[in-house]
């Protein structure tokens, strides 16, 4: 086979990495290249999307695999051992050079490096580690680095990876143990969760040491995240939300990414023939926000799902679905209701709620005031009371869903 040049390798190894949904460069420490020998800075807050692909996804990091060869045979994965895809492998120095070349031109703000497993978990982890080490030590690179760690690698290697990386992650892959067993037979939920537990401890210890000694090494100051594939196994939305709730609680994850199983070339026969609607993934992200920013418990999100199928509605968002189910909680008085109740109003986000709470300390709010804080009043109106507005009782309304749902023709789906 002819030698592949950098651009050819890059297209193979970026293509192989694109099914991973995370590309965030948020969190962690604030750094600057002033006074250093290299380039790179981080904001410590939310990251920058330097470009968007036509699928609407953000590019903030160079997201690639070191190699797409793999000794494992996970059915959902384009890189699995039995796939006929063309293989390529970067050297550590090629990845370093590419990262710096892209960074200097302001195309990216860091690197997200993962790899298929070659030879052994330890060997693979060492290769990944070498890229991060060289960027940090040889080039004094101060941009963002996210490393995917290998569940079965030696903890000493994982520890060193975490000292170079802003964020580390291991994908839990499937929402249920059975799903993982069926589709990723060489992986184990226990080993994955043990590795996540190890990193959680290392992150906490690192942060704690930093508080005591200014020069103590930190471990992944931007924390850890994970990803679940949606629609490749039989788990329903309620299962997924429950698992997410447990993962957030157990491992203090910063983020969980949901990746709608995407048709891959040369797919395995063990996979469902059809992909899930992308809207399903979107609804799961919305349910994730409800848990992280709106104080919903996983059970409450689960209540918004269909009692029989356990699936969240596709035509309306889970917050609206919850409100329609628990309509006796509404309408909510913007001039009096506690913050937690305001957050339950469909169409009111945390910023708007904050603004309402601040403004009402000084005066009473009218409907047009609320209108200036939100995108649209149409969805809100049935759910709130202002000085000059009171909707008719929601429990009396049969046309409510029709009134607030974006696709009124699906009214007949409503059972509740």
């Amino acid at each position: 086979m002819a030698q592949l040049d950098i651009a050819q390798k890059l297209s193979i190894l970026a293509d192989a990495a694109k099914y991973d949904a995370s590309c965030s460069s948020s969190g962690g420490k604030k750094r600057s290249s002033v006074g250093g020998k290299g380039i790179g800075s981080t904001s410590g807050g939310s990251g920058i999307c330097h470009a968007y692909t036509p699928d609407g996804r953000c590019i903030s990091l160079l997201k690639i695999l070191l190699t797409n060869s793999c000794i494992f045979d996970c059915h959902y994965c384009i890189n699995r051992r039995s796939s006929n895809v063309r293989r390529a492998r970067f050297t550590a120095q090629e990845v370093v050079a590419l990262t710096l070349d892209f960074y200097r031109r302001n195309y990216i703000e860091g690197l997200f490096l993962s790899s298929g497993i070659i030879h052994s978990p330890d060997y693979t982890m060492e290769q990944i580690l070498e890229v991060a080490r060289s960027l940090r030590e040889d080039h004094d690179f101060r941009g963002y680095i996210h490393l995917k760690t290998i569940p079965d690698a030696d903890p000493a290697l994982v520890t060193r990876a975490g000292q170079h990386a802003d964020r580390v992650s291991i994908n839990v892959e499937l929402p249920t143990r059975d799903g993982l067993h069926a589709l990723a037979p060489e992986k184990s939920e226990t080993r994955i969760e043990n590795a996540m537990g190890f990193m959680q401890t290392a992150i906490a210890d690192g942060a704690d040491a930093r508080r005591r000694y200014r020069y103590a090494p930190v471990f992944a100051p931007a924390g850890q995240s994970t990803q679940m594939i949606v629609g490749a196994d039989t788990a329903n939305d309620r299962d997924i939300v429950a698992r997410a709730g447990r993962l957030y609680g157990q491992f203090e994850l910063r983020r969980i990414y949901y990746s709608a199983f995407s048709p891959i070339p040369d797919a395995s026969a063990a996979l469902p023939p059809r992909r899930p609607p992308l809207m399903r993934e979107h609804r799961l992200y919305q349910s994730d926000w409800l848990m992280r920013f709106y104080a919903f418990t996983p059970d409450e999100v689960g209540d918004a799902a269909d009692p029989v199928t356990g699936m969240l509605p596709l035509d309306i968002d889970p917050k609206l679905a919850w409100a329609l189910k628990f309509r006796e909680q509404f309408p909510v008085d913007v001039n009096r209701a506690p913050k937690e109740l305001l957050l339950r109003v469909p169409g009111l986000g945390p910023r708007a709620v904050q603004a309402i709470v601040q403004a009402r300390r000084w005066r009473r709010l009218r409907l047009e005031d609320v209108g200036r804080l939100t995108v649209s009043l149409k969805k809100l109106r049935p759910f709130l009371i202002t000085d000059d507005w009171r909707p008719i009782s929601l429990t009396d309304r049969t046309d409510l869903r029709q009134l607030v749902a974006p696709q009124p023709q699906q009214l007949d789906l409503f059972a509740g």
Partner: protein
Amino acid sequence: MRVVRLDDEDDFDGWRTAARALAAERVPADQVLWQIGDAPTDLFAATAGTALPNRSLTVPKDFLGLAASVCLHRDPQRFSLLYALLLRVLVQPHILQDRADRRISVLRRMQQAVGRDVHKMHAFVRFRELTEGEQSRFVAWFEPDHHILRATAGFFVNRFATMHWSILTPEGSLHWDTRSLTEGPPAEKTDAPGDDPVEAIWKSYYASTFNPARVNSRAMLKEMPKKYWHGLPEAALIPSLVAGASQREREMIARLPTTPRRMGRRPDPS
């Protein structure tokens, strides 16, 4: 009528000094004319208010943050709107917290528009490498919507401290030599290098990281509106990448305007 001459489009310090003195005398907002540079005034009865006393006034802490951003907005009324707000804040300090107030919400929207412009400039500046003898200089052409060039300098200095770089815009330019920042005159797009060999590699990355099974032009266009495309090498690929997708997506892309509009004549994006 008082006339205040500010040094520059983004002269927040000048505005602050003048506003402080005028507000101390409670000069009404409609009695002040804010001017930039030596532009002639058509108000011949105007008296220039150059020697203003330096007074201190107490304002709520986020007022200055709001004012510093709004001063960069391209709306010619910005200095006057801010001064009117300052007078109001002195009587009703809590008004800033009331985002539902009509005038506050106008200024908060201006602040947001400036914030978004700054963020997009951080994101969408694309450097091209220019070899100057032994040295490399990284040069970018960018057209901000608002007067934000100086306000973004800190970000690029922090990020690229050890590089030599220049950012050229229609309103002025910035040059960094690893130690200090200098300002230069307005530039033209043709002053920036026309190509960089790394762009071809970047474009092959952009094309490969896109998943055609998930095409969603609406989401892409919301965050990367077409007005930025002419500065982004990868954007040239979008039509062909989307061509593989559904008819609806193709039509959505085709319907949008392609020609970038010049500074100062664009409709407000927000």
